[in-house]
């Protein structure tokens, strides 16, 4: 089944691993959870030798242990979980992993947008069926959240702060009373949440102020703030992990040379430092320079060298991909990249030579093409 999907959800992708974990799990499980909290943590963060398991469980989300622990514990409590952080910090991925581990279903999700309405959270009607048969449970279309309530599983709400306040407020009663009433029906008009139901929402901290959460809703969520990864070692780990996955997905066989990964990480670190010391928005790249962005650059370079190159990832391609992905505004972003290329990459290529020289060349070409 995995092969027929462009991107399989976590519960499908790791189905075998989850089955095995479930079979060896002897810890107490809250509600209808498929795994005990400790096993959920183990699934997300990977196993250690001291865990005494027969097989090794790879790490899937890279970040501080306490964030995962706090998230799991929140889901076992009465409150919803709100993962908040900069774009590209792995919030949605963590949410997906948690939902997959806890209830083997990470697809019951609503995407928050300016156009999300209350119907998307509660229920809507199949109009033709209503005309034909009248309003009944059969002609009702439950929302993913309502389905999650009925099944006692985790519902997901992506980008909560993108949706408008009235839509957000619809969540308040769901999270506190744990039921949805359907006033249109005379009988069977309340859907109660089964034990095990909870909501994982994500919010982008850069969107703060667009649609701020009301304090009533805030109270019903526990906030877990996911910071941008700053440790170079764990960032390298994330990029390698995600890129391997992408390569597998695209069925590309291509080596990722460690020196190129170093160049990518180093240049992102430099650009982040430059952004941190910038005084105005014009001196900053528009991109958040997150880890996800790095993966994007790498993916771009890999695809490019696979289809238009000689199936070897080269520094030159990487340089071009980096400029191509990060130059969003002309002339501001291009000016910053140009400055970086001449002020940092050029001296470095002179000093260290090797791949940096190609990287310099590739970036230069891309900048001159774009400007």
């Amino acid at each position: 089944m995995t092969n027929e999907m462009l991107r399989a959800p976590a519960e499908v992708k790791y189905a075998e691993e989850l089955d095995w974990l479930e079979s060896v799990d002897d810890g107490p499980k809250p509600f209808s959870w498929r795994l005990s909290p400790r096993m959920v943590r183990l699934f997300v963060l990977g196993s250690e030798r001291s865990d005494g398991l027969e097989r090794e469980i790879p790490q899937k989300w890279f970040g501080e242990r306490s964030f995962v622990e706090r998230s799991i514990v929140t889901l076992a409590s009465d409150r919803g979980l709100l993962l908040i952080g900069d774009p590209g910090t792995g919030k949605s991925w963590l949410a997906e992993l948690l939902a997959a581990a806890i209830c083997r279903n990470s697809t019951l999700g609503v995407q928050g947008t300016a156009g999300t309405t209350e119907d998307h959270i509660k229920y809507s009607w199949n109009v033709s069926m209503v005309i034909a048969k009248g309003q009944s449970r059969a002609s009702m279309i439950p929302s993913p959240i309502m389905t999650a309530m009925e099944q006692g599983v985790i519902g997901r709400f992506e980008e909560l702060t993108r949706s408008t306040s009235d839509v957000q407020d619809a969540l308040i009663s769901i999270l506190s009373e744990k039921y949805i009433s359907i006033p249109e029906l005379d009988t069977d008009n309340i859907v109660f949440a089964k034990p095990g139901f909870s909501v994982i929402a994500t919010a982008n901290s850069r969107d703060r102020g667009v649609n701020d959460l009301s304090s009533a809703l805030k109270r019903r969520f526990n906030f877990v703030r996911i910071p941008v990864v700053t440790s170079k070692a764990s960032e390298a780990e994330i990029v390698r992990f995600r890129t391997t996955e992408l390569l597998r997905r695209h069925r590309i066989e291509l080596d990722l040379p460690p020196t190129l990964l170093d160049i990518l990480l180093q240049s992102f670190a430099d650009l982040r430092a430059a952004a941190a010391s910038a005084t105005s928005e014009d001196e900053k790249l528009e991109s958040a320079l997150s880890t996800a962005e790095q993966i994007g650059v790498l993916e771009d370079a890999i695809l490019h060298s696979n289809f238009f190159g000689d199936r070897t990832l080269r520094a030159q391609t990487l340089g071009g991909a980096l400029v191509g992905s990060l130059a969003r505004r002309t002339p501001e972003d291009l000016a910053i990249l140009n400055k970086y290329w001449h002020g940092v990459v050029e001296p470095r290529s002179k000093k260290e030579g090797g791949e940096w020289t190609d990287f310099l060349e590739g970036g230069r070409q891309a900048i001159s093409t774009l400007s």
Partner: protein
Amino acid sequence: MSTFAALRGQLLDAATAFAGGPDALSEILAGLVDDVDRALREELEIFPVCHHSPASALAMTRRLRDRQPKVIYLELCEDLRPLLEELRNCRLPVALQAFATELEGFPPGSGPLSVVAPLTEASAEYQAIAYALDTPGVELVLVDRSADHVFQWLPQEEAEPVAAEHDGDLHGDAVGVEVGDLRPRFAELEEHLLRHGKVRHWSEWWDQYVEQPLAGADYDTYRQAMALIGSLFRRLGPGGERLAGDEERERHMWTRIREHLAVSGADPATCLYVCGAFHAVSTVPEFGLAADAPAYTITPATATRWLYGLIPSSHSAIEAQFGLAQGSVSIAAATWAKATTRGGLTPYRLRGQRGTRSRTTPVRAAVPAPAEQVTDRLSGFLVTPPVLDGLDEAELRGWCVDLVRLARRNGYLASTADAIAVFETSILLAGLRNRARPTPYDFQDAAVTCIEKDVVPGRRDIRRLCEILLGGDRIGEVGYDALPPLARDVYDRLEPLGLDPGRRTQQRALLDLRADPELVPCSDLLWVLRQLLPEGAVRPIMGARRLGERPIQESWDLAIGRHQRSIVELGYEGVTVEQVLEQRLRRKVREPQAGAGVALAAVEDAILYLGGRRFADELGNRAVELLAAERTVDDAPEVLRRIRRLLAHYRATQPGLPAWCEAFVTAGYAHYCTLLPTAFVDEDTGVRQVGAMLGFLFSMESLALSLGCDRVQLELAVRQAHPQEPAKMALLWAAQTQLGLLSQARLRARCDELLANPLVIPSFPLYLSGFVQALEPFPALAPFVVEVLSKAFARLPDEVLLPWLPTLITTLRRHALELVPVLVREAGRTFPASLAELDEWVAPWERPALSAVPARPTGGPVAGLLAGHPQACDAVAALLGCVGEWPTSAVSIAAAPAVGELLTRHPAATGAVAALLTG
């Protein structure tokens, strides 16, 4: 699972990971057993401790209560011993400090050296100290190397610790020493333990795997476990310089112990050796009383003079100094308080110790003492049951409720529901983390999860509030009796203000010196303290000390309590603050880079804060020396400002100028005359400096001439000056005008020429800058400067004028005090004050010239008097070489009827004058 199984697993795992092979592992394991066995078999009972560990403190208390030793050897710098007696006057935590500024035997420039050893109540060493000092017949011997050796043995790269002074930093840049430093010696091992222990930082690992299981353990188990950990870290450690230093210390300690035993003849069975677990399993040949290693010679101390004192410390300062996680020492203190209450154990406290709450009666009956008769040590290591009771739950509930209340006070929208959520989450987290009961760390995490939202509403976030709740940062205070004489003197002298010197908050002191003249000494002291203490310790809100001013009212913000360390350290420099200030001023003027300006500032400070003329004169003489030796005129403006002020002060208060002032003026006159021509042409010397030199020369001229200087010198200097820069040129012209070498009419003509010449116009603003600077040395030139400025504003094209305006404004702003009043006064005199007048106003320099010869007074009493007695005028005229005639039409007094009438009515005055003149 037994209490220690987890710890055993952790240690075994670490040993496996770092042993590097199965053979090495078995070797290490065998070595561990040997180490522990050796430590426990030693004839002199060794008590292994870890710093800031309540479990160590508990075990120590139990051990001391159980069997009372007669001699205690403690791993602490041996020269700090006399300070320990003073601990009872302090509120803990305080730090014992050894301090040295006069170094001998250390590389120059490495001072001041400072060693601190902070002490908290929740520590084994404090228990040992309190027991030993308050129990008659018990001797406490400190056996570790002295403070001097700390620096002698310090690896060179650590010799210069980076001083990061911030608010919570109570220890300054001192090198910290502590009893029982126990931590993995290399980062990989620590990281391994943290990762496998699933904890965030070292303090949490220690708490979970050692502290909690050991809290209820019996003595033997405690010793075994500690020795085991010490041994593992020692065996896995990297060796190198640091281990060599530790071994040196161990040799030192054992040598001192042996020396003491030999001298005192004490029975080793009645002695106890308290040292870090790392040292308890030492492998040096000197280890043990039975060791037959050759005698170890302790290197002699250097000749450095060390001073000792106590300084306040705090939990956060200890954490920062020793790299512990934030809040860990506070949590240890809370754990200790809980453990003593619960265990019904009475900890030792020094008699008269301040700041500790009197112990309430234990709420619970004492837990039965751990079985002493455990014969099988290994099973003792494994069987102690976990202590779990209702008290923990009640405590956690209390924390939750209190935290919510605290959060609400800090702006969070927290409610009872949050308290419930925190409680539930804490328990869930502890379960997830495999802990028997929620630790403070779990509680903290739970609180952050449930209450912290996207923004922190107040100053403190939830993590900080948890720390406050769990005891907060406790800050120690050194008691009055333990303070050095200087600090006590300061406290005594500030007493009239009625403030509490121990309070750590800022206190406001209001001094109405007119109503309460007895507060004047307080005010004097505060001003001295302001010079000596760091920024913020004493801060005047209202009132200033300047020469020639007398204070009437002052108000001060005082934070003496918060800066107690600074005051204590001042105590190392002298006996009174005045003495310290005197020394500092003297040092300041003797520094190689000191200039005349610095020395004059020191003179001013000496007059303001120390009174007494002798010292000011000494500094003044130094100022003369410095001025004569100066080769640049960079601080001429500063010198001019200060010497003017000082001269004004002396003229107003003393019958004559001090000799040094006169010497300074004559030396300055000659010095600046000599340097003037160079300064005019030198590109590095600014207009401001040249202006100040001229200011000195012209405004001190009369004094200098009266002291024997020669005016010709100045005239020559001005004649020799040939500046190139327009600004300096303008200054020179001004000087020439002042000296009479150039008439004002000529100067005006020159400026007009410049303005009329299109080639020069772009540089005209530079001339203007020169003229503006000339306002200070030559205030008489002010009307002319106003005239030139007005003309420039009127005639210069915008593209020349506008770019220069900011320069003018910034110059005026920077030197507002000297330049602006003169300029404004003159402008006020020149320009009309109202709009109505403006219409008819003509600039004075554009008015048609009045007749050259001013109308001679044709009448009046003066003319009458002169006409009546022409001899004096004639004599003056003859002297000056003027030839003149008296007008023939002498005016009679009668011509002015009013005067005539006045004189007729009051003839007495005229009669008296006439009598004087004729008589």
